[in-house]
């Protein structure tokens, strides 16, 4: 194993933002006309587009409204490695795959690829609904770079992998979406390139099929092939990849063969402040009031220790709030509100939710109160927890939607003990619910 199979040197890609795509002849002509008459200072209105990107943005390009989608990226990959590429949307992952698969050209830099590349940026590319499964296998295979003879050789294998043998001569428009995806993945999975570029294909299909796909990818690696795998599914990346690249703002923020370390770094926001924000403390006179002046808000385990993010979901956590009470008021309600990463409210919880005899007694002086976040209720992801409170039907002390004490909670790890449930589930919450047979 001498030279790396993929060598990327100082690769950059500049994008123009805005409505460049829909330029009309008149705009170009106007621009040319003004230039020709030496009226460059008299900019045409089209040059006064609002700024789509602030000039001090990390990714801002040399001219207004240009953006470095990739900025001076260098790395190399050896044969047989399965490399996971992670990062937020817009971090440059997909742009990298597009350049490596020759869909578009870089603005500067160079990539050397020592092998045949096939890219799988979306399953079912080029499927035609009117054609039968059989015809689509051939067409899609050819689009992905297979020769007809190669497809014919693997045809039976593809059909049995996709489990569509009965419908192989039916137009794919009559397929269920599951069948469609299975067939599309099966074609792609049977490519035999030296290098396979994959973007988010495992987001599809049922759990069993996903397992099968992950297995297939492991098999591909054992055959000595190299895989670059872009995904937001951290469990899949962790399960398959032996090495990972973390992208941030168009540049590589980390390379490591310790995949789970890199994933933790990414999931926890890759930012110190997000980690620190598992705890909020009052800087002095914030939220001063005689009923409940908050001093501290944190997420902790049952022993009261602050938990380090990301946290596993298989133990209860507590939202602990500390405050000073000068005037005890029976109408005081204190609780928390929990929001998803995208800002959807999941639920409110107050210390007065249960029947009255269970209410914790709030007395004058320092008061430490905690509310449970039940285990195995939340899904994987990041959550925002805000202090909530007021005097019942009289006034808000910590009104939702205003600036209130806030902490962040990041959950990662298998949400369940079930062997069938190994990945993040769709849905804001992922409770494990009891099932029983009745008859």
């Amino acid at each position, binding site marked *: 194993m001498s030279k790396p199979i993929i060598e990327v040197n100082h690769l950059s890609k500049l994008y123009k933002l805005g409505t460049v795509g829909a330029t009309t002849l008149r705009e170009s002509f106007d621009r040319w006309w003004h230039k020709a008459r030496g009226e460059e200072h008299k900019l045409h209105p089209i040059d006064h587009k609002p700024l789509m990107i602030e000039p001090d943005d990390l990714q801002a390009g040399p001219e207004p409204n240009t953006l470095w989608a990739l900025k001076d990226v260098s790395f190399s990959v050896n044969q047989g490695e399965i490399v996971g590429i992670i990062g937020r949307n817009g971090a440059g992952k997909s742009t990298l795959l597009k350049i490596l698969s020759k869909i578009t050209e870089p603005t500067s830099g160079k990539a050397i690829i020592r092998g045949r590349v096939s890219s799988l940026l979306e399953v079912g590319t080029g499927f*035609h609904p009117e054609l039968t499964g059989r015809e689509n296998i051939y067409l899609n295979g050819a689009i992905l770079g297979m020769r007809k003879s190669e497809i014919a050789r693997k045809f039976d294998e593809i059909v049995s992998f996709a489990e569509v043998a009965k419908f192989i001569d039916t137009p794919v428009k009559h397929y269920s979406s599951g069948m469609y995806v299975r067939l599309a993945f099966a074609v792609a999975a049977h490519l035999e390139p030296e290098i396979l570029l994959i973007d988010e294909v495992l987001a599809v299909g049922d759990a069993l099929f996903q397992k099968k796909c992950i297995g297939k990818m492991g098999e591909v690696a054992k055959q000595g092939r190299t895989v670059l795998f872009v995904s937001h599914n951290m469990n899949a990346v962790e399960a398959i990849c032996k090495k990972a690249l973390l992208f941030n703002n168009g540049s590589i923020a980390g390379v490591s063969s310790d995949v789970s370390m890199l994933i933790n770094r990414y999931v926890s926001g890759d930012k110190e402040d997000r980690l620190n924000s598992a705890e909020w403390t009052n800087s002095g006179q914030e939220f001063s009031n005689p009923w409940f002046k908050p001093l501290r808000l944190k997420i902790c385990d049952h022993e009261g220790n602050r938990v380090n993010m990301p946290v596993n979901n298989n133990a209860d956590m507590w939202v602990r709030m500390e405050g000073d009470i000068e005037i005890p008021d029976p109408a005081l309600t204190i609780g928390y509100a929990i929001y998803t990463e995208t800002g959807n409210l999941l639920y409110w919880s107050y210390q007065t939710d249960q029947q009255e005899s269970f209410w914790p007694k709030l007395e004058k002086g320092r008061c430490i109160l905690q509310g449970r976040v039940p285990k195995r209720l939340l899904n994987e992801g990041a959550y925002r927890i805000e202090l909530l409170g007021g005097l019942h039907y009289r006034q808000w002390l910590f009104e939702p939607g205003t600036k209130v004490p806030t902490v962040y909670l990041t959950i990662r790890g298998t949400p369940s003990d079930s062997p069938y449930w190994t990945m993040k589930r769709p849905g804001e919450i992922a409770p494990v619910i009891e099932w029983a047979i009745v008859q």
Partner: protein
Amino acid sequence: MSQIDPDYEVIIQPNRSWFYVDWKGLLHYSDLLFLLVRRDFVARYKQTILGPLWFIIQPIFTTVVFTIVFAKVAKISTDELPPMLFYLCALVPWGYFSGSLEATSKSLLANAGLFNKVYFPRLIIPLSIVVSNLIALAIQLATFLGFYFYYKFLTPAGSTINPNLLIFVLPLFLLQTAAVALGFGLWVSALTVKYRDFQNLMAFIIPLWMYATPIIYPTSTVPEKWRVFLALNPMAGIVDSFRYAFFGSGYINVSHILISVAGTVLVLVSGMLIFNKVERTFVDWI
């Protein structure tokens, strides 16, 4: 176990030469070309009752309309040939040309979704269009020959119809037709990526082009001093050659044909270069 071929290296970098054409890639994807041709053909007529019969219906209808409007009402000369034959003969290469031009000029935008996801030499798409239109051409040519033999042997007009050896050169003229359509189509599809104006332009350029080509009138009715402009329209020479080959009458000028061949080569080569230049980054523009 796959082994790295130490000599196999793909270098990806910006600003490759204008003259870089991925011939090796085109060859590798030749199977795709024929599968696309098949797809075009199959998909076009699935769920139609008449299926490929549409290929025949369309030119015959056009011919009937032309016969009524131009030959009977407007009384435009057809060089003493049966109008039906006169028009149909010209519509065979013209139909192939306009069909190919229209489809190739849309090839980049219409397949943007595909091109955004997977790489194969983009030229495969316009090439497959030109090839798949050959199927329609073959069917229409057969239809024309049916009428041709009917008029030649079963009607008194047969004596005015004298085929000659030029018939054997017609495949070369069809090749030229394909080249003109492909060349212009590549130009337009490359320009449309940046300027959508050309999409609208094509909608009336093709019909206008038809009137600039001796289809509804014979070249003999064009004043002598204007005929030189016909040399600038490669389709004029092609249509005239078709008529001359099948009927033995009409206008044919060798020097005009040579000029049009030179023009065709120019359009095709420049079209391929501009298409090639645009295809490398066009997904960023759409």
